[in-house]
């Protein structure tokens, strides 16, 4: 038996950098360093663990949709231990919204072939947290999402989903789409050996025509949503800061009373 896992990974602007919008109201990716969305490291990690715990022959493919630099995200995932990578890149993808992104990802996943798709719980830029559910809908397979624990055995994926009201045990037959949270287990650091090995691993590049997609189905023009404006929030005006010299708690209480919180 063999198990084909596709891990979707996003290349995002560094959250600790000065993130902002370009003139066309898409994210400015030129001014800020990009990296593999940290939350997708957890998805790569779980794929590696499923592989390590499996008697089957497991092949892990990492997939990204993004500009030229997004290869960095693929390299990072490969150096963690993934086997191969697919990069979907096309100038016409600029400005694609979530419906379009899920279309491109689903087409690429189908073309690559899969038994299991693993995604992160949300990207660290768009932070919508809906791509995994959209992929399940498009691929017509079960969604087993937001897992803090995941295992695969005998063609069945099981996991634990910790929600607000309850913690649920979930189960579905493969093929399926899984997403994992940052509670699923620390992601490993690439080893020196892993980094060297990653340089030799295959990275395929596909464009829209490879996926039988037309420019008008994606990109800013094809988007199903439109951003009309983006405004930087004014910096908060400097507040009052006091040093505790024995009365700090009382001074704070006085402030809270003045604001009618007490």
């Amino acid at each position, binding site marked *: 038996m063999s198990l084909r896992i596709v891990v979707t990974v996003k290349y995002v602007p560094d959250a600790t950098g000065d993130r902002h919008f370009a003139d066309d109201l898409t994210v400015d990716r030129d001014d800020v360093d990009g990296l593999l969305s940290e939350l997708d490291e957890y998805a790569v990690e779980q794929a590696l663990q499923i592989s390590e715990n499996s008697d089957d022959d497991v092949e892990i493919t990492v997939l990204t949709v993004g500009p030229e630099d997004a290869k960095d995200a693929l390299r990072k995932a490969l150096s963690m231990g993934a086997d191969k990578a697919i990069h979907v890149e096309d100038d016409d993808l600029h400005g694609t919204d979530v419906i379009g992104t899920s279309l491109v990802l689903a087409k690429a996943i189908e073309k690559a072939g899969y038994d299991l798709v693993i995604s992160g719980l949300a990207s660290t830029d768009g932070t919508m947290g809906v791509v995994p559910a959209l992929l399940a809908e498009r691929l017509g397979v079960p969604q087993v999402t937001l897992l803090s624990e995941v295992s695969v055995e005998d063609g069945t994926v099981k996991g634990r989903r910790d929600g607000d009201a309850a913690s649920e045990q979930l189960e579905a037959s493969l093929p399926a789409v899984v997403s994992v*949270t940052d509670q699923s287990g620390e992601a490993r650091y690439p080893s020196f050996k892993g980094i060297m090995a990653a340089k030799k691993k295959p990275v395929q590049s596909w464009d829209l025509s490879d996926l039988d997609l037309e420019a008008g189905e994606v990109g800013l023009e094809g988007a199903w949503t439109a951003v009309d404006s983006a405004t930087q929030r004014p910096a908060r005006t400097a507040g009052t800061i006091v040093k505790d010299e024995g009365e700090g708690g009382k001074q*704070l209480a006085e402030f809270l009373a003045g604001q009618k919180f007490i």
Partner: protein
Amino acid sequence: MAEVLVYVDHVDGAVRKPTLELLTLARRIGEPVAVALGAGAESTAAALAEHGATRVLTHDAAEYADYLVVPKVDALQAAVAAVSPAAVLVPSSAEGKEIAARLALRIGSGIITDAVDLEAGDEGPVATQSVFAASFSTKSRVSKGTPVITVKPNSAAVEAAPAAGAVEALAVTFSAQATGTKVTGRTPRESTGRPELTEAAIVVSGGRGVNGAENFGLIEALADSLGAAVGASRAAVDAGWYPHTNQVGQTGKSVSPQLYIANGISGAIQHRAGMQTSKTIVAVNKDAEAPIFDLVDYGVVGDLFDVVPQLTEEVKTRKG
């Protein structure tokens, strides 16, 4: 006037506050029609009517509890077909967003998630989003199909606006995918008696500076004196001092209370992502250079083990 579908988040018939907020927002763009599913669906009607629902479409079946997400998408899709609404509003919970996304795809519409405000516009509803850890505010629209928009808790004040709230049975046929993901076990979360983190007017949080699970009692005591919810930073959660469900931030809950009190929290960007839109921000931290102080309305540079108990005592005294 056009009708607007509002997906009802409820627990056995008890409507959660974010849904009542959605009814307020829905009235800005049309007449709210509520969709309540699962056990207790009909008992939601009174609360929904009181807050503006002209109709309440209900359906109960075992599938809603026994399988993940898809049965609810099937039902909402049936409601869209029955009502032809001008928009669909769903609370921005993890599940709410997944339901909304699949619905949008099925009905050929765009989706906006995590709106913090909503108004009527010439080309349909305009949603405000707070993005990049709340450093930018954007205004967006759905440009194709019936707008599907998820809205964060605390985005509007709950207003009473009595309406008919007539209960009507919704006819639902489940899709082949509905039974794809089985819920084989469920452990309900024990209630602490404190307000829900995302809905609370005041949140008191603790971070690595609290230095131990046993010391979270100090944070809880302050929270209780103010009638507040308790939050925690990821550092505190990862250390096992407090449950993950109380984590505030990018991978935890985002909160937007009237008052946020951060104790022993440095203010990393991922933490700020979850609390930066709080109306009033207060911090206690022994490091005067901690980035959290850039955000505060009032900050105390000091040891939380001195400041927090004194504050708690003072609050109790003043409240009498």
